[in-house]
């Protein structure tokens, strides 16, 4: 399979066959991501990270991934220190990064920004989150986590809980999981339900999601519980946020009646939705999930760069 030069803007740009290929390849890279093995396959190559919005895991794991492959990273994490502040267009900033590097990773508060960046760049562009829109590498690492933990994605009982309206990871994830014919339960307060068009997409792929606000009932037979933060920054109205924050709390008590091998995932950062007491249980997988960002991003960076380990 050839991914050389491909932009990674949306998970929908990939077929199930391509996703499977990337997940399997990512698995091979785990020892490289841990630093147990090393190959300088991207020596002399430069990755630009253009982060117009705050990020911890996504930016660091991209930087780690490029370094583990032998390449270098340039970029910024604070747009206030760039010419954007002087009013430069995103298109011009991207043109510059294009001439300075071999690959661009971009996070931006506006939806569609990565697609626009790809229009102005010759080198491949990877979307690291565009507003409330898409975040395909997060989706890849979420699938990768289920794939490596459960050995397969198909037929798992997956529960997505929290902000399903504004949360960008859950939209792409619900779509991608539907490619694998999972049993999908969507748990949210009434005001933060999954958008209709996402439900329609799941249905078109043959998955009829069960929508509820009752978490206890939903996790009874669950194999995967995917928790999201209620994101204050995405709410147009502070009052709406205050009404729903803290609706769902995952703690030991809640997990008492769950499957023994239930895994709890979270894209992080978390606030109060997962009690720290869960961290020490066998269910907690969110930190390992965060690590998985490195091998899967190594896989994506190397594939679009035209090299494979």
């Amino acid at each position: 399979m050839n991914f050389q030069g491909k932009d990674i803007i949306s998970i929908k740009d990939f077929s199930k066959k391509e996703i499977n290929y990337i997940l399997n390849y990512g698995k091979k890279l785990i020892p490289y991501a841990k630093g147990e093995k090393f190959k300088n396959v991207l020596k002399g190559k430069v990755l630009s990270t253009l982060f117009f919005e705050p990020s911890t895991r996504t930016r660091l794991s991209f930087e780690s991934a490029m370094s583990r492959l032998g390449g270098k990273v340039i970029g910024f994490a604070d747009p206030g220190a760039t010419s954007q502040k002087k009013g430069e267009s995103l298109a011009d900033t991207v043109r510059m990064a294009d001439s300075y590097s071999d690959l661009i990773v971009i996070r931006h508060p506006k939806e569609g920004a990565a697609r626009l960046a790809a229009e102005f760049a010759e080198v491949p562009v990877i979307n690291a989150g565009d507003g409330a829109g898409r975040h395909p590498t997060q989706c890849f690492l979420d699938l990768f986590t289920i794939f490596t933990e459960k050995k397969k994605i198909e037929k798992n009982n997956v529960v997505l809980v929290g902000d399903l309206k504004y949360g960008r990871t859950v939209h792409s994830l619900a779509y991608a999981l539907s490619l694998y014919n999972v049993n999908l339960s969507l748990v949210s307060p009434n005001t933060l339900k999954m958008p209709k068009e996402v439900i329609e997409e799941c249905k078109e792929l043959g998955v009829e999601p069960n929508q509820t606000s009752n978490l206890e009932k939903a996790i009874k037979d669950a194999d995967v519980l995917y928790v999201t933060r209620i994101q204050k920054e995405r709410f147009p109205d502070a009052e709406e946020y205050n009404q729903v924050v803290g609706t769902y709390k995952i703690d030991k008590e809640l997990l008492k009646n769950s499957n023994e091998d239930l895994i709890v995932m979270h894209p992080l950062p978390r606030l109060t939705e997962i009690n720290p007491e869960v961290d020490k249980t066998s269910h907690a997988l969110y930190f390992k999930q965060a690590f998985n960002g490195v091998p899967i991003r190594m896989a994506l960076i190397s594939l679009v760069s035209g090299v494979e380990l």
Partner: protein
Amino acid sequence: MKELKIQPIKNGTVIDHINAGNAVKVLHILGIPKSSSSIVSVAMNVKSKYGKKDIVKVENRELDPYELDKIALIAPKATINIIRDYEVAEKHKVKLSKEITGIVSCSNPTCISNSKEPVKSRFIVLKKDPIQIKCYYCEREPEDIAERII
């Protein structure tokens, strides 16, 4: 003899087979009456073989292809007759392209195409009848297409 609902025109354009009730939207797209001094006649809910339809006649003005693209968005079955000296000089159906550029603005206020970037709005046509389009940039599907025509 069949009675004509509106009089023939000497020169101009007749837009026929507009879905009933959409004639006003067609006028809006053509910038009538604001940017035009042409005489315009409108017939609404006219009986035809395929049910009811609207007709718009614009005197002394021949529509350009850009305007036809716009009309296709809200009246996908419309036919355009260019009239010269009372005769139909040209007749064609509006045709919706696979992609629409620079005609409709995205309904998502935080879409990058609504910021000061050097790009035109761009939509992929998902379905032609009824029309369903998706923003190339943010993937939002606007429902109020007629209201969003630039």
